[in-house]
């Protein structure tokens, strides 16, 4: 399969972030067209395109928009989730920094379709300081051109966008955590139902969409649902950005019709494994996705096929690990991440993630016990599905899959008190650890 340039069409141009470059490539035509349509027509179009959310869950975008009640007592809100913090994921950053107007146009169309009130927010992770600056500049340009503000494009639709910077919390990528954080609270997810589409931010119906999802919308309006469905397979349609990182020769963001073969992606487009070592494991969808073994990677990277293979496409953050990586150490690092990022609201997740980190650390230090591998599985069983949001479920993904697939390596750590020969630990064990 050949790489395509749809979402990434502009990124290599000089001054790609400027409104002039965007207009030269036909930008904002779709927004103009959409404002002449009925909102329900746009929603139907997005439904017909079978676009699924690119943030991780793969929920059909058109259906989500359809859930927004008409004539709700409080205003409806559109929020853009740019809190990209899943380890292994760096695709939204490319759109934000290189083609911000594509995102803005997608937001204008989406806001019009769901009947959003005149203000909308881009929740961008606090660390993306440069990205936030690029967005602010792009918003200024769009306001100057009359694409944002009162009566945009000469219609009677008022719409503006505010960039809201997060402050370093992975949990704020979770939709209700994001809503809480936007309201000025700690980003602790809410009980659902009510779902955000009914009661979300500031008490109004709320649609939260990922950057890449919103970036797909102008193309659907401009070129039609059938064109969009020309990419990928039924139920898994459209162009998709894949982020490849870890032990590969050419890491980076690659765009393909959704459903590129994982093996082909790693060995042909990314040039294979660093130093031509052997592949050990692949995490196909960001840190939360269960690991795949080398014989399992001959599969199409779309939501349904990766699910069938026992993992998930998630945010398409593909982390490649070669044979020299100690799997216990790698999983410890992910466990440490989830322990750090657990918001502390639900006990199974708050306590469980910390315990998993401790157990993996003691195995790595040669202090593991015979029953530790099973203990990890037992703990995972006590975390999964027992908390308000998906962070707990995410935390156990890499643990369960690695214990099942690399049990011998775990046991080696207990019996030999060292890593498997030929594998490497990347950190020193004598470093003092800063508190969470």
């Amino acid at each position, binding site marked *: 399969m050949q790489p395509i340039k749809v979402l990434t069409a502009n990124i290599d141009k000089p001054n790609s972030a400027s409104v002039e470059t965007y207009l030269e490539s036909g930008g904002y035509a779709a927004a103009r067209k959409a404002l002449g349509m009925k909102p329900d027509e746009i929603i139907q179009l997005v439904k017909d395109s079978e676009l699924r959310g690119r943030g991780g869950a793969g929920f059909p975008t058109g259906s989500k928009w359809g859930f927004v009640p008409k004539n709700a007592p409080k205003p409806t809100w559109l929020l853009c989730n740019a809190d990209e*913090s899943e380890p292994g994921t760096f695709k939204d950053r490319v759109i934000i920094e290189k083609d911000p107007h594509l995102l803005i146009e997608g937001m204008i169309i989406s806001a019009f379709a769901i009947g959003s009130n005149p203000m909308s927010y881009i929740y961008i992770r606090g660390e993306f300081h440069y990205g936030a600056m690029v967005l602010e500049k792009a918003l200024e340009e769009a306001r100057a051109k009359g694409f944002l503000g009162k009566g945009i494009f000469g219609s009677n639709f008022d719409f503006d966008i505010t960039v809201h910077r997060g402050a370093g919390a*992975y949990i704020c990528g979770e939709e209700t955590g994001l809503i809480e954080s936007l309201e*000025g609270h700690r980003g602790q997810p809410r009980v659902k139902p009510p779902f955000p589409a009914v009661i979300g931010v500031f008490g109004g119906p709320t649609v939260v969409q990922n950057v890449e999802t919103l970036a797909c919308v102008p193309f659907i309006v401009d070129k039609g649902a059938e064109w969009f469905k020309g990419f990928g397979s039924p139920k898994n349609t459209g162009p998709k950005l894949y982020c490849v990182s*870890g032990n590969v020769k050419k*890491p980076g963001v690659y765009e393909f019709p959704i459903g590129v073969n994982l093996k082909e992606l790693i060995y042909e487009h990314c040039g294979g494994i660093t130093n031509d070592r052997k592949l050990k494991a692949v995490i196909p969808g960001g840190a939360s996705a269960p690991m795949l073994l080398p014989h399992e990677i001959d599969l199409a990277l779309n939501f349904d096929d990766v699910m069938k293979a026992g993992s998930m496409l998630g945010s398409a953050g593909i*982390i490649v*690990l070669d044979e020299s990586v100690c799997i216990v150490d790698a999983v410890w690092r992910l466990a440490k991440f989830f322990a750090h990022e657990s918001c502390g609201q639900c006990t199974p997740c708050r306590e469980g993630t910390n315990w998993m980190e401790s157990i993996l650390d003691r195995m790595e230090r040669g202090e593991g016990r015979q029953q530790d591998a099973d203990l990890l599985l037992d703990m995972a069983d006590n975390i999964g599905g027992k908390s308000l949001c998906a962070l707990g479920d995410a935390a156990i993904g890499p643990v369960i899959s690695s214990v099942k697939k690399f049990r011998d390596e775990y046991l080696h750590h207990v019996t030999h008190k060292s890593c498997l020969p030929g594998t490497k630990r*990347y950190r020193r064990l004598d470093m003092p650890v800063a508190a969470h």
Partner: protein
Amino acid sequence: MADLHPDNPYAKVRFPDRGKLVEFLPDAKKRFDHILTRYPTKEAALLPTLHLAQEEWGWISPEVVHYVGSLLDLSPATVFGVVSFYNMYNQKPVGKYHLQVCTNLSCMVTNAYDIYEHLCEKLGVNPGETTGDGRYTVAEVECLGSCGTAPVVQVNNDYHENMDVRKMDELLAKLK
């Protein structure tokens, strides 16, 4: 009362010093007033106001917590609850250069820990600490969303990508 550990919420350093009350200068006040116009509730302006305060004073001191609370009609406890939840709000002063090394998986397998350990050793600090001259703070941080150009080190607001120990030394020489 015996001196309490600084992490203890009742420790003396956690309370504002009445002699050191703070206030935004006119420029910052103008930016704060603009922030307020962008949100339907005052409370929603808390995160951006704290970012602004940190730009002004470098960290969120107990005095700043009280001041921000008074601006937004929030109790100091509410503000402090938010400050302590998010990573990016510094609860103690940091050095002129805040060296934040991402060590998450993609960075780890491209040797980010070598950079991190090298920095701690070279600057003679433990993780999270600041050098005696107040110039550098070294911290290990979670994924910065730059895995394709790993390892990445964030210095204050700027990303430095595709780093290694040698490049880190070169960068450090420039950060005076």
